[in-house]
């Protein structure tokens, strides 16, 4: 009995002494922090994507709290509603930013770009880019290993097995810009979404001269400048053999679109596409290897998936149907 009492007393007293010590030390070394940082962090999405240019959501919250105006501070993931909440907490006026979206500026689909070699190395665009030109002859186009897909924290990017190119799910894209950094060829650009999500884009980055570019990809911009000639707003410039549309000047009249001889110029977000590219980009009737193999036990879709799993991923990074 005595033993129990002594142990309880010793432990109890040690506990109380430790608690008092801890309290005193905590008081002594207390860090005064603006309580609003926590509040701001609370309303942020917490994705820590770095799309705002800060190290993470906490850093962004600190930057907002310190700032005298919210101009230039934007959480691309949360967008305007989040910034309004942040503004309300800090008593600052939220500056409305126009929403952006990631745009893949390459239309070198499998059927447009002849495959000149087969890549057999590590499954990464960055490594492939450091090694050589890629599986097609285009030194500027998409490599198709999906570094951007791996970088996307919002599941907004997927490689389309038909074209071998990444496609952006505009609903999910938060324009955090991670894919832009991940792409070794700098193909992905954050562009303003535009009114009703409609905008004009040149889907090509090829700086080679026309004939070379055309040889390597049927959908390449050959820098002919026809689009620039017809543009009433002078929004299109051709530099280094490739056209670029200035969003600020473009009024989405779509005059340029039918002019493009190769289908590099795209109107995005319109109900239907008018260009040649629409025809080539439409799903072709090429059969998947599994369907050709005729494994009849499975549904063709499942069989294709099985085949994809069986195929070593490092061998055929570019197009599934070329395997």
């Amino acid at each position: 009995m005595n033993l129990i009492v002594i142990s309880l007393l010793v432990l109890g007293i040690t506990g109380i002494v430790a608690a008092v010590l801890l309290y005193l030390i905590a008081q002594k070394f207390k860090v005064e922090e603006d309580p609003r940082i926590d509040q701001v962090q609370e309303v942020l999405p917490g994705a820590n994507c770095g799309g705002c240019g800060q190290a993470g959501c906490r850093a962004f919250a600190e930057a907002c709290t310190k700032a005298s105006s919210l101009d230039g501070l934007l959480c691309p993931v949360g967008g305007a509603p989040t910034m309004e909440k942040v503004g309300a907490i800090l008593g600052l006026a939220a500056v409305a930013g126009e929403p952006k979206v990631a745009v893949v500026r390459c239309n070198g689909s499998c059927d447009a770009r002849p495959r000149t070699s087969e890549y057999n190395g590590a499954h990464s665009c960055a490594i492939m880019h450091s090694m050589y030109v890629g599986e097609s002859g285009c030194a500027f186009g998409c490599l198709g290993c999906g570094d951007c897909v791996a970088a996307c924290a919002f599941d907004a990017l997927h490689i389309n097995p038909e074209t071998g190119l990444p496609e952006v799910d505009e609903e999910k894209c938060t324009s955090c810009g991670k894919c832009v950094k991940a792409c070794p060829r700098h193909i992905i650009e954050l562009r303003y979404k535009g009114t009703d999500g409609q905008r004009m884009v040149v889907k090509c980055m090829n700086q080679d001269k026309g004939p070379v570019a055309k040889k390597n990809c049927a959908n390449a911009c050959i820098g002919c400048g026809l689009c620039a000639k017809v543009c009433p707003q002078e929004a299109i410039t051709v530099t280094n053999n490739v056209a670029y549309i200035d969003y600020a000047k473009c009024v989405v009249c779509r005059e340029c679109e039918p002019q493009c001889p190769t289908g590099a110029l795209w109107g995005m977000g319109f109900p239907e596409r008018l260009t040649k590219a629409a025809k080539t980009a439409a799903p072709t009737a090429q059969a998947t290897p599994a369907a050709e193999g005729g494994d009849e036990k499975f549904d063709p879709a499942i069989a294709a998936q099985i085949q994809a799993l069986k195929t070593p991923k490092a061998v055929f990074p570019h197009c599934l149907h070329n395997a």
Partner: protein
Amino acid sequence: MNTFKKGGIHPKDNKIYSAHQPIVECGLPKQAIIPLAQHIGAPAKPIVQKGDKVKVGQLIAEAGGFVSANVHSGVSGVVNKIDATTDAWGLRMPAIFIDVEGDEWVEEIDRSSDVIRECNLEPKEIIDRIAKAGIVGLGGACFPTHVKLCPPPGQKAEVLIVNGVECEPYLTCDHQLMLEHGEEIMIGIQIVMRALGINRAVIGIEKNKPDAIARMQELAQKTLGVEVKALKLKYPQGGEKQLIDACINRQVASGALPISVGAVVDNVATIYAIYEAVQKHKPLFSRVMTVTGKQVAKPGNYLVRFGTPLTQVVELAGGVPEGTGKIIGGGPMMGRAMNNIDMPAHKRTSGLLFLPEEESRRGIEENCIRCGKCVSACPMGLEPYLLSRQSELQMWSEMEDHHVMDCIECGCCQFTCPSHRPLLDYVRQGKATVGGILRARAAAKK
């Protein structure tokens, strides 16, 4: 018998195909395409214009910076244009296109086959001639030689190490060069010793080249201060730091240059080029390259002028063999697969290797089983499995802490990996990224 201590592997050397094949001169092309960036550092600046007449050995592009090298014409003719051409990997590179007319050499080049032994030049003059001749390290890195021969202030060279190892499987061009031009190489060694103000040189040769060892030993006996070391067979013995370890038993610290232990390393092909430049006034516009492979009809060692399309050399060797899966520029270990053999020969092209389809495929990548084979194979004492994983996860600062910059990209780790993991691919990627970060940091400090 000596070798380096840490790591290393023993791939089959496969040198029988082209070994002892006499050096054959490859003919002149119809149009020579001479790239401006044939070396590490800044590309050269062209000094000729369209329509200019050039002779063999004429300077056509000047060094574009301190770490850069002059480029000379390998042919005589008229400059057609200065434009981009496609390199071995399908990328565009600037080059000078010359339509070949005849074979007219610059007068001052001594074209006789006499061996000139006398050299009474001052060290500065020698280095000047080497710089003018555009000589770069022909072992593979293509680092401008004149930069190497000017040690940074406070450091002094004590010994010249000559790399006759040729540890890459398949390649035999250095071996053949030693057999055919041993005497010239020996004079070249004395010239470099004179330029550095030293009296000791060690030639390292692997023991799979007994005739080259015997030949060089015979010549070395007549030469003061030169010694031949026969080395055990092990890859990557031709790496600078490994060769210093094997030849003179000194270890270069992490991040340090060979000069920190008093060594200067040069390849035999470079030494031969130095001999030709100093004694014969012949700038670097040709080199010996090996064309080889199991199924190649006439594997051999070919002397090519820079600017000659590689297809022409391949034709001499009997064309691209049937069933070729991969064409590698250089040796199988450090060389890179090419996707364009129309490209011209230049200072970097040490060999062309045709691998049959069944040998060219990588194994299917599996998970790391932590066997540690890569760690014991790494000649630099790194942990490739860890570095490659860190690179995959983009942990750049951790890679820096684990000395990724010491990696010599020899590929021992990937060769030895039982899971066929692309270790080197990732480590190389990490090294490039960390290198960029370090350069940015150094620039920010300034």
